[in-house]
């Protein structure tokens, strides 16, 4: 992954309530950031891979999501797929600025070209 992606991902995610985020590229390489010690980076690869599996399962049932939102008592996980197969996952506290700004973060993600 180029520095452009990393810088833009980091800059675009400095939002209150964001616990962590991860990016999974079509070649399965992952990049992750943690903004809360309870949401460590080392778990993000596993989460991203599981989310990718879920995308495959959904596609197998004729469901091609534009977004997945996993809602738990203490947090939400958003997954936004890009047409090239890249996946952006965000973990947020519920009802926070981060949860409200998922669209903006997604736009940033979509603005990255596949080569970035």
């Amino acid at each position, binding site marked *: 992954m180029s520095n452009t992606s990393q810088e833009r991902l980091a800059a675009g995610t400095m939002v209150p309530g964001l616990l962590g985020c991860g990016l999974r590229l079509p070649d399965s390489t992952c990049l992750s950031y943690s903004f809360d010690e309870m949401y460590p980076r080392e778990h993000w690869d*596993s989460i991203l891979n599981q989310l990718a599996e879920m995308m495959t399962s959904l596609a197998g049932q004729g469901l091609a999501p534009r977004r997945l939102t996993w809602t*738990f008592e*203490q947090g939400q996980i958003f997954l936004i797929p890009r047409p090239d197969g890249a996946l952006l996952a965000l973990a947020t506290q519920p009802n926070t600025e981060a949860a409200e700004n998922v669209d903006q973060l997604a736009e940033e993600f979509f603005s990255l070209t596949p080569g970035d």
Partner: protein
Amino acid sequence: MNATAKQYQILFVDDDPDFLAMIQDFFATLGEKIWQIHCATSADQALQLLKARKMDLVVSDVNMPMLDGIQFLHILNRSHPDLKKAVITANATEEKRSACLAEGAELFIEKPRSPEGLKSIFIMLEELITWTPQEGFQGVLRRVGLQDVIQMECLGRTSSILEIHNLQLRGRIYIEDGRIIHAQAGDTAGEAAFYKLLALPSGEFQLQPFESPPKRTIEGQWEFLLMEAARVHDETVAEAAAAGLVSPSEPAPGVEPSIAAPDAGTRVKETLICSGTGDPLYVWQCPDRPARVALLREVAQQAARFSQLMPLGNFDRLEIQLADSRAVAQAGADRMVFVRVSSLKEEPATRIQ
């Protein structure tokens, strides 16, 4: 990550630069570092600023060249419906006040003539900017069925009161933490009232914030209540059809003609409710039940893994946004639910109050 106090972005729009300078001086001092004040001398300049930055409040003059304050409010109401708006004018008239409030302004204030007046305005604006809308929402949705709304409220485990009325009947359904606990329709209460309200072919409803009902008359699971309501409704229509009163596709007698009759069958695209072990309890237009059950099991497994990896707490639901619809999947130990509905973009609500 910084945990700084929220800074409010406030945009003042006035063609008088001296007034703007005075506002900036005075309010920046009163607002200390909490208010960040932006100024525009015209509506188009204000719109440019709004494109570049999210504002919390816009305070506009009325008498401005080119695009006056009322037209500006009209545009804002469409482009930024959630933005708080106030009007401040030197020529306050009842006509202007009505027009501004009708265009979405929350406050209509006369321009002050003294520092004390400015301070009063500051207090009013501060009250407005920190005001949080009451939890829940009010609205009128057309072309969205009552069943859809009840399903979404129950699936979301929210608490609310659904007020329903048409020309013949007025009633309320109380939902607490996703459970239907009481219904009242005219003089009827309990499940009978619930079925009566669900049998209405048309009308209006509003979701109100929850408050405890005068009594609790319903205990059953919402899924079965909805199924029973559908059965009662079908029977009523069939009986009316058999008596030659209506055709099966028409509303039952005793209720008003359709105002905006829901286009039944196109809103909820599929529903699957099954036990925690996957035994079907209710299936409607589910294209491949075993596959959906497998999907729900996978959702449950993945949610459990996420909860192990991160302190997310109990899993509530997975929402799947699709191109033409959205789905909600819930997978609990005792029950699994999959509901897919047409997206609101496909069938827009025609009026939101």
